[in-house]
Every structure is written in structure tokens, then in C-alpha cells.
């Protein structure tokens, strides 16, 4: 007789070990009930388990294979899909094993348990009595309790006050944008924007030269209207060189960047040219200087007056005409002078 190959010997050993373990687990017969006292509030049923145990075994082996596969893949080929598939299947196999074991292998029991009564008057009264007796012989109880309440409130308030140092006071900072008269409007790369850069039907985003772009007061949206298209009273038709209007790009509703421009270039041109915020659809009429025509914003889109310098570059002609950024309690107040 020839020796079986090593791999087969290994397999036989593993299978044998698994079989021994399996047989050990099988109940020889139903265990004898304790004589005389079958608990009346328990229904106990021993399911026939052979098939179910095989399922559990296969599921657990599946877990081993999938988990080992995960480890191998992690080392050799860490691909997200394959890794997820392996580890997910490992857990799913484990779940199948546990649930089948819980429902088909172990004894199935239903028990009835009486609930305990909740609330016992006597003990409640005792507790109240114990608390009350603690104040026996104290003559100025009300006053002491009041003082203790005041002390507690004071200490609590004192403990919470340092939270105020988490941030600065409001003062004038929410009013202050980086725009000043004479500041050039630059694009995202820092190059000055000229009149020629702004075309009818499109928009450009501008920033104050030399200032941070992150703050809500900085980003500007620039659009150009046809001559005579502006529907503002004559005295408000200022700061719009060559029909170019600058608006804060930050929606006065919830602070999103107003980055959609609706400008029908051909018929039907009924919807007016408008800037639309993609978050909550506040819609601002550019012909009327940013007036709200739809959506939730409580204020118009603030306009920045512009002028043109000798090089035809766009330059701010002051700060926004109205407060920029989302509304707060002081947003309509007169701005402090810079």
C-alpha cells in the first residue's frame, strides 16, 4: 500500500476531528426530566437537530473561509469591493450559524414569568418619612432651602460663565466686510477682473484683492446687463459701470454660495435674469438690484457699488449697500463707520 498524499491525510484528520466534535454535541437521547417537578411555566422542546447542525457547521466553516480570505486579500490585494465582500460574508455566515443554532439546534423554550409589582406605597411613605425626619428640629427650613437654592444657582451660573470665552463678542465684526472703496476685484487666481471679463448672460466670481477669500463678506458675483435693462430708480443706478453689477455671493438666507445664474438668452425670455441659491432656491432679481422674487430669504442680495479705474479694472466703490451674510438680530442696524 502506498502512503496517501500529505494533503489528503491532513483533510482526513480535520474531517475526523470535526466529526468527533459533532458527535459529542449530539444528545444521546432526551435528558430525563426531574421526577415530579416539570416546571409548569416552561415549554421545552428539543428539536431534531441533525440537519440544522450541519447547516451551522457549514456556516461556521464559511466564516472561517471568508475571514481567512479577507486576511489574504488585505495582504495581497487590498481591493475595497473584495475586502467588503469577504468580511461581510464572514459576518453573514456567522449570523446564519448563530440564528440557525438559536432556532433549530438548542432547546426551544417558552417561559411565562409574572411581572413584579411596580410601586409600593409603604416604602414610598417610608422614603418620604426618612427625608422629612432629616429636617427635624430645623427652625428656619424654608429660609435655608431658599438660600441653598440660590447658592446652587449662583455656583451653576459661575461654572457656566467661562463658556463665554469660547468665542469673541459680536460687536461690529458681523458688519465688517473686507470691501473698501478703491479695492480691486480679482479672480480666484488673484488676477484683476476687467470690464471685458464680464459677459452678458454669464457670471464671474470676484474677491477683494489682498484679503482672505474664506470669510462670508469676500466673495462677489459679477453679472452684466444690457443697456437700459436695469429697473432701478435713477438715484440708485450708481456703482454699475458698463451695466456690470456686483452682488455678495453669500445668500442672506442660510449662507450658501449663490452660484446659479438664470439668464434666458433667446425666446421665451419671460423668467427674468435672476441669481438662484442652489440650497433653498432663494431667487434674486438682478435687474432690480438683487430684490427677492422667490424663496425663503428675508432680505435682498446685497449689492456692492463698483467703479472702473484707469486700466479698465473693476474696483469697489465702498462697502455693500446693505448688510451681507445670513440674518441675525442686528443685521438691519446701521453699520458702525469703519
Amino acid at each position, binding site marked *: 500500500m502506498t502512503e496517501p498524499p500529505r494533503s489528503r491525510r491532513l483533510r482526513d484528520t480535520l474531517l475526523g476531528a470535526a466529526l468527533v466534535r459533532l458527535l459529542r454535541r449530539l444528545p444521546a437521547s432526551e435528558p430525563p426530566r426531574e421526577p415530579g417537578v416539570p416546571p409548569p411555566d416552561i415549554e421545552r422542546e428539543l428539536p431534531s437537530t441533525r440537519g440544522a447542525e450541519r447547516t451551522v457547521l457549514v456556516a461556521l466553516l464559511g466564516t472561517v473561509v471568508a475571514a481567512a480570505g479577507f486576511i489574504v486579500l488585505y495582504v495581497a490585494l*487590498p481591493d*475595497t469591493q*473584495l*475586502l*467588503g465582500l469577504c*468580511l*461581510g*460574508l464572514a*459576518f*453573514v455566515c456567522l*449570523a*446564519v*450559524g*448563530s*440564528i440557525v443554532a*438559536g*432556532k433549530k439546534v438548542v*432547546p*426551544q*423554550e417558552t*417561559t*411565562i*414569568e409574572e*411581572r413584579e409589582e*411596580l410601586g409600593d406605597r409603604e416604602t414610598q411613605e417610608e422614603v418620604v418619612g426618612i427625608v422629612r425626619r432629616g429636617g427635624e428640629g430645623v427652625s428656619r427650613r424654608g429660609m435655608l432651602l431658599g438660600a441653598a437654592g440660590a447658592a446652587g444657582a449662583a455656583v451653576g451660573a459661575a461654572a457656566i460663565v467661562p*463658556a*463665554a470665552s469660547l*468665542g*469673541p*463678542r*459680536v460687536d461690529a465684526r*458681523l458688519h465688517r466686510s473686507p470691501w473698501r472703496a478703491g479695492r480691486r476685484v480679482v479672480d480666484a487666481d488673484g488676477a484683476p477682473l476687467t470690464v471685458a471679463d464680464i459677459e452678458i448672460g454669464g457670471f464671474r466670481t470676484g*474677491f477683494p484683492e489682498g484679503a482672505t*477669500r474664506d*470669510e462670508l463678506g*469676500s466673495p462677489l458675483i459679477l453679472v452684466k446687463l444690457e443697456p437700459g435693462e436695469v429697473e432701478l430708480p435713477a438715484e440708485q443706478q450708481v456703482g454699475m459701470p458698463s451695466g456690470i453689477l456686483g452682488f455678495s*455671493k453669500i445668500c442672506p*438666507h*442660510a449662507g*450658501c*454660495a449663490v*452660484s*446659479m445664474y438664470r439668464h434666458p438668452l433667446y425666446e421665451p425670455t419671460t423668467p427674468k435674469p435672476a441669481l438662484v441659491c*442652489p*440650497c*433653498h*432656491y432663494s*431667487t434674486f432679481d438682478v435687474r432690480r438690484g438683487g430684490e427677492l422674487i422667490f424663496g*425663503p*430669504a*428675508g432680505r435682498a442680495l446685497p449689492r456692492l457699488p463698483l467703479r472702473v479705474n484707469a486700466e479698465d479694472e473693476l474696483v469697489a466703490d465702498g462697502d455693500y449697500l446693505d448688510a451681507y*451674510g*445670513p*440674518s*441675525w*438680530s*442686528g443685521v*438691519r*442696524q*446701521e453699520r458702525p463707520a469703519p
Partner: protein
Amino acid sequence: MIESPVRFVDERLNAAKLLRKALRYVFPDHWSFMLGEIALYCFMVLDGTGIFLAFYYVPSDAETVYRGTYEPLQGATMSEAYRSVLHLSLDVPAGLLIRQTHHWAANLFIAAIVLHLLRILFTGAFRKPREMNYWVGVTMLGLAIFEGFAGYSLVDDLLSGMGLVIAYAVALSVPVVGADLALLVWDGEYPGGTVFWDRLFTIHILIVPLLLAGLIALHLIMIMKQHHTQFPGPRRTERNVVGTPMWPGYALRSLGLLFATAGVLLLLGGLVQINPIWLWGPYETYLSTNGAQPDWYVGWLIGGLRIMPPFEPHVGEYTLAGNAFWGGALFPLVVFGLLYLWPLIDRRWSRRGERHELLDRPRDNPRRSAAIVALLTWVAIPFVAGSTDRIFFRLGISYEAQVWVFRVLAVAGPLLAWLVARRVFANLQRRDVHPLRGWTGRVTRRTASGGFETVARADGDETDPVPRERP
């Protein structure tokens, strides 16, 4: 093998009595009781995956230039935070799997809590003696939503930035204290000081998870003290509990549910893409995008903000509340206020204060169920309005038309839902038909000769066949 550890622990802690009780603890069986368990297991998955993620994340808005392996963003200026999540997702083995599993788990976590809450509301499980546990649960829902929002805000991609600026605007809009509040939280004007990112990180990985863990423990301790409720059935009364004991049957099945939850989440995390942040790009205040959808559990707030008419009351120069306050703060406050008050409202309505261990079916109390349907509708309409851009994309209905429809529905919808639901539940109760299976009841009658007969009740017979203890 079992004796020695039991003896070891018992001789030191007297724990055998406790173990005896725990192993025989009874669980009533109903599929809907699994929802809370799924939420618990999601929390475990979130903890496990979250610890891994926390070791990679850099809570910093310091500017850096991307030089990683993802070509389209090569050379882009971005925050350290965003760069660290890109690195984690694209260069760390199994990093994307764990991040996506974490994200899916967060979505399922809150979904399971919401469904669990609906089960509790519709079956009256919040009634005495479980009010306190109900309040703990509602608190956990609020924390979970906040935690989820904080989590996807940390990434500092374009989508998180748009969410954070809206949160900042909602804080600003709060009457009187809003601006101070916002500047405190952000340490200055938006986008805030560098410490803001440390704050958000600490809140997301330490403070809220600890609070949730503590409340979960409290939730479970209270359940153990009171046992589960149960649906009426053979041998089940208001004073007992009928079900499967913890050991061995229930422990194995529940463990199976844990593994199944983890398995499904890992499969989702590996196979179904979620929040591909490298496509969104870094956030700048001047950038935004259309068609951006937040995680599902903030959809109702986006919708609330969206369908609110432009109402911003001010007295002279003093603004009473910014518009974002109504949809972003007051709306959720009212919803959560109603949820907290619910046990008290229900008690008022029923005018009864006794202990309830048997659950109602939704039809058993048409008024309560209709009120819950109305509340749900009030939340569901803004939720749908939160995806107007998807509706426009799919159906081509303009934003403006949609917003107007949702505005009307937000007012009329709950009322309509209340009326319809009340009728449906009352009819179901009267006819006692299963909405899907039809009539399932049988009537047992005493016959004239003294025997008993069991018959299906004739259609149109309005007498209540089941003697109920209700007045």
C-alpha cells in the same frame, strides 16, 4: 469548563444569582422588537469603525496642497482635514471599506431608531410604566442626528461645507442670542477659528458617543427592570411576560442579528459607494453645487428651510428672527417637543393612568394612531421637499412649482392625513380585518342548546366580537 469560571466569579462577586436571572431573562417575540436591537448593533459597528477612522483623521483647516495618488485633485489647495480623509479613503488598505461601512452604519443607525420610535408610538409602548425610557430614547434620536451631521461635516468636502454654513446661519438666526451663540461655537465668524475643527472632532468622537453609550446603558437597565411589552396573545396578560429565555435560544438569535447587521453593513461598505468625497472636491465659502443631497436624516430640515416663505419679522432695525430659524430650528424643536410630550398627551386623552404591559395594535386606538400619522406627515412633507432637485431631475417639475405644492401640503397634509388615517383605523377596528390578509377573526358563541360554536363573523355585523376591557 463551565464550573470553574462561574465559581471563580461567584466566590468573589456573588454573581451567580445575577447570572441565573440574566440567563433566564424572558424576551417576548415579535419582529418589530428587533428594530431597537439593530440600532444598538449599528452603534457597535459605528464605534469599531469610528476608532479606526479617528486614528487617521486630522482635525485642521490649515491649507495644504494635495500631492496624493488621486490625479484629478493633484495640486489642489485644500484643508488638512479633507486631505486626511482622501488619504484614508484612497491610499490606506481597507480604509475606504471602513469609512463607507461607518457611513452606512450611521444611516442605518438613525433609520432603525426612527422605525423603533414609530413602533413604540403606534403600539402605545411609551405608556406607563415606560415614559422615562421613552424620553431617554427620544433624546438618543436627537443626539444621533446631531452626531451624524457632525460626522459628515468633519470631512470638509464641498458637501460638508455647505451643511456647516447652513448650520452657522441657523445658529445666527436664533432670536436675541443667535449671533453670540454662533460666534461662540465657531470661535468667530464663519468659517471660524482653527479650534472649531478640534471642537467638532471632540464632540463627534468623544462627547456625543459617551452620552449615547451612557443613555444606551440607561435604556437597557430600564428595560431589564421592566421587561419588554408584549402583544396580546394566548396566556399573555397585563401582569406576565411570555417569551424565549435569554439562554440559549435568544442569546444565539440576537447574536445572529448582531452579526447580520455587521455583515450587511460591511457588504454595503464594500460594494455600494456612499459619499465619494473625492468627487465633491474641497470646500470654499464661495463654492456650492446644485443637486447636492445630505444624508437622509437631515432631509427634513433642508426641506423645512426650503419651503418656508420669506418671513423675517423685524421691529425697526431689530430683527426678531432670521428666516433660517423657522425651518432650521423651530421646526425640529416643535417636532421633538411634541415627541417628548407624547406620553403626557396620550395620558390626557385616555384619561387613564394604569400600567400597560400589553401593546395596542395601531387600530386599537384610532385617535392616537391618526395623530401619529399626522405628525409623521408633517415631517415627511419637508423631507420630500429636501429632494426637490432630484424630483426636478427625474420628473422635470420646476423648483418653484414644487415649493408651492409643498408649502400648501405642509399645512393641509397633516390635517388630511389625520382625517384619512382616523377613518382607516376606525374601519379596520370595526371590521377587524388585516389590511393585507383580510378578515382573520372568528367568533365563538354560546348556542341555544348550551354548546359552543365558532363562526366567521358575517360582513356587516357591527357587534364587537372580542370582549375588551376598554370602557
